[in-house]
């Protein structure tokens, strides 16, 4: 118990940087802004969960699928009970929407998880089909991504005779 408290105490410091703990102005608009969570916070602390959630999820999914253990600590369906990002109408948004809890961070670090090919990313009853139909393609991960025009222009430039010559000098 003492160790838990210690971890918790340690976690409190850095956790504030990225999270909804900052109810005022975001420290930096560059950092992901998570939707506010409901329910009891994790006893291990935010820092721990930010770092370990992927391991906990894959560990615990084996407990459920392989051993039939249903009382698990990291249950994917449970995440969305407390971590719901809602749209303008108050409907929880699915992983098709960049505002979704998991996507806020994942888009930021540029990773993509395949969990929601199979799993729901909202509580049962929410119509995810409507969101998928209306929303963008799941593959289109980063909404405000880099300007592709600029990138293509750069790539075109690489193959231009002028660039080829520059490369030649380097050899």
């Amino acid at each position, binding site marked *: 118990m003492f160790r838990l408290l210690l971890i918790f105490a340690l976690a409190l410091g850095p956790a504030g940087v990225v999270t909804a703990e900052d109810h005022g102005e975001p420290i930096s608009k560059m950092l992901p802004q998570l939707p506010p969570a409901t329910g009891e916070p994790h006893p291990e602390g935010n820092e721990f969960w930010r770092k370990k959630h992927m391991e906990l999820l*894959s560990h615990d*999914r084996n407990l459920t*699928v*392989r*051993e*039939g*253990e*249903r009382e698990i600590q990291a249950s994917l*369906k449970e995440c969305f009970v407390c971590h719901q990002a809602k749209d303008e109408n108050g409907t929880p948004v699915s992983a098709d929407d960049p505002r979704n809890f998991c996507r806020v961070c994942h888009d930021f670090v540029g990773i993509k998880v395949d969990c929601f*090919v*199979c*799993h*729901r990313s909202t*509580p*049962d009853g929410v*119509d*995810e*089909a409507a969101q*998928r139909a209306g929303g963008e393609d799941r593959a289109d991960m980063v909404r405000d991504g880099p300007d592709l025009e600029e990138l293509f222009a750069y790539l075109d430039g690489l193959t231009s005779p002028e660039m080829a010559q520059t490369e030649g000098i380097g050899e």
Partner: protein
Amino acid sequence: MTFRLPDDESEKPDLKRRDFLRSGAAVAVITLAPGVTLTAFGGSEAEAGAADAGKRWGLLIDASRCDPDCNACVTACSQENGWEDTGKPETDAQWIRKVTLKDKATGRESSLPVMCQHCEEPPCVDVCPTGASFKRADGIVLVDKHICIGCRYCMMACPYKARSFIHEPIVNQKSWAPRGKGTVESCTLCVHRVDTGRIPACVEACAATGNKAIIFGDLKDPESEISRRLAEYPSLALRADLDLNPGVRYTNL
């Protein structure tokens, strides 16, 4: 089958009552007539908890009680697990289907549901290259979709055609039954219900129609309803010649 006798419908109602009243004592009557009834699934066979090697879950299906015009088990399964008929029978998922068997010699037809037979020696598990196809300690055969690569060897190995492959993107799954394109799936014996002490959806729906053609229970417990039935009355395994020892058994085929 040596125990297959002419099916006299007029005998049935009486038998049902007697069988019900005298429970296990009606052996003599029952071996003479095939309209043997399986009583309702009483109480919950499943106790909440993780997969227990001391148990082996199974089903006993009484074909004589299965109404050819009834599809309740299939509908219940599809609703519970969120798979549906999209009008493309070649590719649609079918966790459970109604099958009609016809004895060519006599013309007698019987109707029965067929789903994953939860074999003790499952060929789907033998052929799986990733270990995704596996048997739980309590005998339930599953696909661990997290490591399924969608190769479909298991589908080819299964003599019951019990498995389906998901060909198209899926949305609005049930939280307790995640499903997604590119993986294989089949009847899970409603593992999410069994683990929480409930019975499979098909068994519940069948009982609700009053047909009570499917019993669910622990084959390792000699006192369970299913074990007592199996010990008392003739039953058979589909494709018994393959020696797979399925957990799903049939009577009055």
